[in-house]
């Protein structure tokens, strides 16, 4: 069982690595933000599996907090940052 859990976490990690390509490449700010959101969800999944693996209930608290705060950054991005800038700059910067 432990082996399977570890394999799944490693696999999820590899998908994280692949997702980083989207953060690096963009092209728009929103694309990068989406990749960050996927990072958050994957991290939640990894945390939940690690909680089961290490039999540490506290890890699930971290996952819960992560699930809560993933929205905060997206909302901050959409309301504070993305709406104020025009699309042309968005592409170039």
């Amino acid at each position, binding site marked *: *069982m432990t082996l399977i859990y570890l394999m*799944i976490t490693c696999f999820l990690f590899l998908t994280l690595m*692949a997702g980083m390509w989207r953060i690096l490449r963009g092209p728009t700010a*929103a694309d990068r933000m989406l*990749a960050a959101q996927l990072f958050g969800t994957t991290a939640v999944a990894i945390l939940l599996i690690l909680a089961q693996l290490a039999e540490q209930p506290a890890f699930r608290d971290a*996952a819960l907090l992560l699930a809560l705060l*993933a929205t905060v950054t997206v909302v901050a991005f*959409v309301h504070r940052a993305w709406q104020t800038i025009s699309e042309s700059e968005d592409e170039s910067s």
Partner: protein
Amino acid sequence: MNPADSLTILLLMAGAFFFLAGTVGLLRFPDIFTRLHALTKADNLGLGLIVAGLVIQADNWAIVGKLLMIWLLVLLASAAACHLIARTARRKKILPWKR
């Protein structure tokens, strides 16, 4: 290996597969709207299946409740975030990619 364990393994692998699909979609799809499609589905079912796999292994009902709560929170968050981004993209007159 007992049936519960094998079911967990199956569900976890399916969940990981959908995470992979979500990432590949995020990398391959051409514009922000289509990428949102890939992302929300991975959020929904990828995490859902992993949570389902862990629920089977949970020691007591409180843990089941907590796992489901986390899944629902992520669902709510991703649906809201997805709607926000899609709405702003539309208001900013970002044209959807066309074949």
